[in-house]
Structures are given as C-alpha cells and as structure tokens.
C-alpha cells in the first residue's frame, strides 16, 4: 500500500518525531511504499543537519536521511514553516541573503501543495504531532 506521513512536531520535543520514524520503518519493513514524509510547523526542525545530539543518543535527522536514501522517500519541508525557523537550503539562503544553509541530506524545501498531493496520491495519510 502507498502511505504518506506528516510530522508536525520537532525532534527531541515530546515523542512524535520518534513515533513517525518508527512507524515509517515498520511500514517499509512490511513492504509498503512510503511516498512522502511532509514536515510542517515545528516538524521542519527534523531537517537541520546542524543538530549534534550526544553520542549515546539517537540522531533523528540522520535516521530520516538514511531512510530516505535507502528507500527513496521524498522528505519535504514546508517552505513557510522553514523560513520562520531558520531552515534554509542553498537557494533559500541566496534568496534571503543568508550566509549559509543547514538542510540535511534527503530533505527538500517545498510548499503545502506537496502535502495535498501526498494525500491524493497515497492510500493513507498518517499524521504525527503534538
């Protein structure tokens, strides 16, 4: 089955980012396709590569990046939510005159249309958040 996931909470906040990650892993293990993970609100903070959790803690961003690479998952960050929170890719940094970008591997910045499309293209949309 084709699934889409939405994440509305940042990593290390409550549990939603972990739940979404564990759910996505379990879905892939069962042979389902995860068409897209859409990060909205504080969920965009899952996509910064500048996070450095302690070595004995999980690195949620790196786990998303690895999953995306292994299973060809489209990790989409909402552009407006990202701008508010200082998450930039190279184009956004240039466009706003910022001196660097911080988006992690496998993530891309796009708009809410990608969430609507994920809802239409997928059999189920599963939402995780605060």
């Amino acid at each position, binding site marked *: 089955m084709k699934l889409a996931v939405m994440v509305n909470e940042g990593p290390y906040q409550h*549990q939603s980012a972990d739940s979404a990650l564990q759910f996505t892993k379990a879905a892939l293990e*069962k042979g389902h396709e995860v068409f897209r993970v859409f990060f909205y609100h504080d969920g965009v903070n899952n996509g910064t590569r500048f996070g450095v959790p302690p070595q004995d803690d999980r690195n949620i961003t790196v786990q998303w990046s690895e999953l995306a690479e292994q299973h060809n998952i489209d990790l989409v960050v909402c552009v407006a939510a990202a701008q508010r929170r200082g998450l930039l890719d190279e184009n956004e940094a240039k466009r706003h005159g910022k001196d660097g970008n911080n988006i992690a591997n496998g993530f891309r910045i796009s708009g809410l249309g990608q969430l609507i499309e994920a809802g239409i293209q997928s059999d189920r949309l599963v939402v995780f958040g605060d």
Partner: protein
Amino acid sequence: MAMLHTVNKSPFENRSLDSCLGRIKDGAAVLLFEDAVYGAMKGTAVAGKVQSAMEKSKVYVLGPDLRARGMSEDQVLDGINVVDYGGFVDLVTEHDSVQAWL
C-alpha cells in the same frame, strides 16, 4: 466504513481522548500511543469511559510505548489489544482512513 483514530496525549493532560471517544462511529478503532497509553490502564478515572467505548469500538494500545513508561500488558484493561509498530501499520492499512486527534 471503519476509521482508525489515533490518540497520543494522556487523558490526564488534555481532552483529546474524551473528544475522540465522544465522536467516533460504532465499529471504529482507537489506537492509544505515546502518553495516551495511560488511558489504557486499569483502575484510573477514565477506565469506565474507555470500557464503555469498547462496547461499540475496538481499542488498541502500542506496546513499546507502554513498556517505555514502565508498564506491562497485565495492567491494561481487559479487551484492549496490545500491538507493536508493525501492528500499528496493519491497523492503518486495514482501516479506510486515519484520524489523528492532536
């Protein structure tokens, strides 16, 4: 057609479980995960409400989130099914749609 409802907050923290149970259709399923696993415990102030919901709907609880909070399956109300993440995925695919009560 049957819908899966997910609740992730403790019933002692906000009213999302109450809102959910008050509005679901007969035959729907409810999955309690994250802090909502407290709603699946025996002997709490919300146990009666959850038990009466089970007369018309199925209630599930996520085992890993129970154990992460130091609780075991024998503390869960009779009739609630304990599932793992794979079971969570199955619930999603077996129901026609999923509603998160955030």
